[in-house]
């Protein structure tokens, strides 16, 4: 039996953490109603934060989908701000292709044209291009083929069909139309390009009449200038540098990342605002937890005194209080996350069902509980638990056991 003399060495807790956790759980269960009410406060507080943030995240995703559709964020649209002096020609295409991290360059002629269908004539926008450009354009296909298989294939939009009196997109497939456009060749001569095409696919753009056809007739006619390029970068992070390089050629660029950036800014602010509202509930829950732990400490002053007389160290007492706070916060936090998820899923189901009755296809995820949100919420509740435990545990370690035993 020796007293260990070591002034520098600080003794930590010796008691097994599982035993401390078990004692903490029994202490909490000893006051079931109080523990239940405190935990419900945390469930509501954390649930409110998670529910509102999941709404912000869900709406963000919905808006992203609506704005971007299936567009690749790696794609850069290139146009010429001055089509007279700065040309989107083969020379510039070659230069752009040489830039680092450029995956592909897809040009398209964009020309005004005329439709001639069974004697009736109407105006349209003609895209003379490749299948790669079409796939990068993230078009919303209604029926038929999504690609041009031959030089005489054409993909048209529903507005185009309206002009030729074909409101049914399925029966329009296979109809033959004549398209007339004029181009200017390298020598400056204006040439008429007349092409007979067969409709193979229908898209819905929601704008005026448009037709996508092969670029070969315009190349054959000697048009050296394209209307637009779609440049695909290797990765999202390469887009900014490539855009700078393209701008260096005097060309204009646009990227879905521009829109995405604006949406992100708006939704970041929105997320903070809703998290702030939810945070009010969280603050009340934390105060409730603090109150419970402080009262619990006062009620158990003599018990803590007893534990010290039996050989409990400061670390043991502090950890017991911390375990109680963590049990409250982790179980309450988990309950809050589950509650928010369940309510969000029910609302998603209701919104989707409502949307389906109004002809909208697909599932609406207005509430999105992401793994990151779950992780962040658990971390938040653990941090809250530790902060709440700080004062009672500090106070508990300062209890004089002799005074504490007289306390009862």
């Amino acid at each position, binding site marked *: *039996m*020796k*007293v*260990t*003399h*070591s*002034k520098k060495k*600080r*003794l930590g807790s*010796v*008691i*097994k953490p*599982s*035993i401390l956790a*078990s*004692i903490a759980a*029994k*202490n909490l*269960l*000893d006051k079931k109603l109080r523990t239940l009410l405190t935990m419900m406060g945390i469930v509501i507080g954390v649930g409110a934060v998670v529910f509102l943030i999941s709404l912000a995240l869900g709406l963000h995703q919905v808006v992203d989908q609506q704005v971007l559709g299936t567009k690749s964020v790696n794609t850069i649209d290139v146009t010429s701000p001055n089509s007279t002096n700065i040309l989107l020609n083969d020379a510039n295409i070659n230069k752009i292709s040489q830039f680092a991290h450029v995956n592909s360059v897809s040009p398209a002629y964009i020309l005004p044209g005329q439709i001639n269908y069974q004697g009736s004539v109407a105006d349209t926008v003609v895209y003379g291009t490749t299948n790669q450009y079409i796939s990068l354009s993230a078009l919303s296909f209604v029926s038929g083929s999504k690609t041009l298989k031959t030089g005489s294939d054409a993909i048209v939009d529903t507005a185009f069909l309206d002009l030729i009196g074909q409101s049914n997109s399925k029966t329009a497939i296979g109809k033959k139309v004549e398209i007339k456009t004029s181009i200017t060749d390298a020598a400056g001569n204006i040439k008429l390009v007349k092409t007979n095409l067969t409709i193979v696919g229908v898209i819905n753009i929601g704008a005026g009449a448009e037709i996508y056809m092969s670029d070969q007739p315009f190349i054959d006619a000697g048009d050296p200038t394209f209307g637009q390029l779609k440049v695909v970068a290797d990765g999202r992070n390469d887009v900014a540098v490539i855009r700078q390089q393209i701008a260096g050629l005097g060309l204009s660029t646009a990227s879905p990342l521009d829109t995405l950036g604006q949406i992100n800014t708006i939704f970041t602010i929105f997320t903070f605002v809703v998290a702030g509202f939810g945070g009010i509930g969280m603050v009340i829950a934390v105060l409730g937890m603090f109150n419970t732990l402080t009262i619990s400490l006062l009620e*158990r002053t*003599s*018990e803590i*005194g*007893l*534990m*010290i*007389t*039996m*050989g*409990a*160290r*400061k*670390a*043991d007492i502090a950890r017991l209080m911390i375990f109680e706070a963590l049990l409250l916060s982790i179980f309450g936090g988990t309950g809050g996350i589950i509650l928010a998820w369940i309510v969000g899923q029910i609302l998603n189901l209701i919104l989707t069902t409502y949307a389906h009755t109004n002809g909208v296809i697909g599932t609406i995820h207005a509430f999105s509980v992401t793994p990151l949100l779950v992780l962040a919420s658990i971390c938040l509740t653990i941090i809250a638990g530790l902060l709440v435990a700080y004062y009672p545990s500090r106070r508990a370690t300062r209890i004089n*056991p*002799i005074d504490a*035993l007289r306390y*009862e």
Partner: protein
Amino acid sequence: MDSMDVKSPPGGEVSLPKSSSLNNLITVKGLNKQFDTKSGSVKVLYDINFDIPNNSFAIIFGPSGSGKTTLLNILSGLEPPTQGTIKIEGQDFYTVDSDQRALFRAQSMGIVHQVNYWVKSLSVLENVAMPLYLTGVEKNIALKMAMQNLDLVGMADFAHTRPLVLSGGQQQRVSMARALVANPQLIMADEPTGNLDSKNGKMIMDLLIKCQKELNRTIILVTHNIEYLPLSDIRLYMVDGKLTQSDKGQHAPMNEIISSLTSELAELTKLEQRQ
């Protein structure tokens, strides 16, 4: 002076005879304790000196307010002295920090209080296992040892009940089991039979005697009860914070002490009758 004689100058050091087989477990020198309150300082212990050898049965006795419990609190490492040293096996107990004293208490001291204190949310079994938990013993081993000790005090049948539903005598037996569970070298009991009937009181005292005689433990008992004095090897008599006498039973002052305690008891009885 034979080996059982004691030199005991009033308020001075008590020189206990050292037999070849008994080494001093506790050595107290120049111990003073003073409490500072708002209304001033109150000195409760004056220059206490004594030794307690290993495997002995020491009784601290004296009238109420004489400083017995304060002395016991200081010996158990819960109340630092204002002045003086407490050496346990030659090592100064108060030069180590409170955590190290706590660890020492958990491993080597069993304390029995007059009033029973419990961790109310835990069962009798887990309360008894608590000193083992505090020394880092695995739960299943601790519970097994706790059950053995409850069996020793005849309380195994109550292992899974809450301690507060037990009678005072039963609680004190469980408290004894808790004090013994970590197999401590030193057992300190502060009037453990004070609130018990004679039957339960005898059982507690028998356990303490068994611990000393059969398990070679050192016992320090604080008591008012002069009936227990013959059981002890060492008697430390305290009056007004001073250790006035100590003996092994041969000294004349013991008669005075008994006389003093008897008078005090008579006064208390009269007071009760008046009320």
